[in-house]
């Protein structure tokens, strides 16, 4: 079974600064996907960024980037130029790569607060 661990229950950052959220996972799979989802106070789950395990290049989406270390089973999220709208709960998630739809396994989440 896969497990996802987010060791930082809460973090805060000043507006315009950079913050990094940590995530580690445990799996015996070689092919898989990793995701970061954002959950603002509305509780909607919003996909932020994805990473395929077979790709060595770290994914980037505008101000969001990841540091994917496959051997260390680490998948951190960096948010640059933090904005007030980035305040949310952030969940790291793992999915096996299969021919049919696979479940997402989520971590416990990190509550990020961006301060003005």
């Amino acid at each position, binding site marked *: 079974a896969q497990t996802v661990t987010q060791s930082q229950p809460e973090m805060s950052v000043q507006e315009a600064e950079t913050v990094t959220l940590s995530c580690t996972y445990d799996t015996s799979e070689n092919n898989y996907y990793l995701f970061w989802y954002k959950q603002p106070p509305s509780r909607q789950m919003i*996909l932020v960024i994805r990473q395929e395990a077979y790709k060595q290049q770290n994914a980037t989406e505008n101000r969001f980037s990841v540091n994917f270390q496959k051997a260390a089973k680490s998948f951190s999220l960096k948010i640059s130029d933090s904005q007030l709208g980035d305040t949310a709960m952030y969940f790291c998630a793992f*999915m096996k*790569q299969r021919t049919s739809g*696979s479940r997402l396994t989520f971590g416990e989440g990190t509550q990020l607060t961006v301060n003005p």
Partner: protein
Amino acid sequence: EPEVTQTPSHQVTQMGQEVILRCVPISNHLYFYWYRQILGQKVEFLVSFYNNEISEKSEIFDDQFSVERPDGSNFTLKIRSTKLEDSAMYFCASSGLAGLSYEQYFGPGTRLTVT
């Protein structure tokens, strides 16, 4: 941009009653999922559905739960004889064919309160 929709946004029910939560997945998606999130906790997988049958379910998804795709657009989660501990946010998600479009897109959720 296409999105997953869910109704109702909030459902209050009495313990022992049956509830049906409804979802309309993204139209060209083939895989459908239900997840739940108890307040303050992480999101947990319940079930996945493909080609009109369950493809995977978690240990949470016991005989109390069932899923159905009654027509070409809706995807429902039925909870029979609700319990207090079923109070949670229930999310529907959908995705395309794995390998082509594997990302799961979530609906806004239905908040279920069992009293």
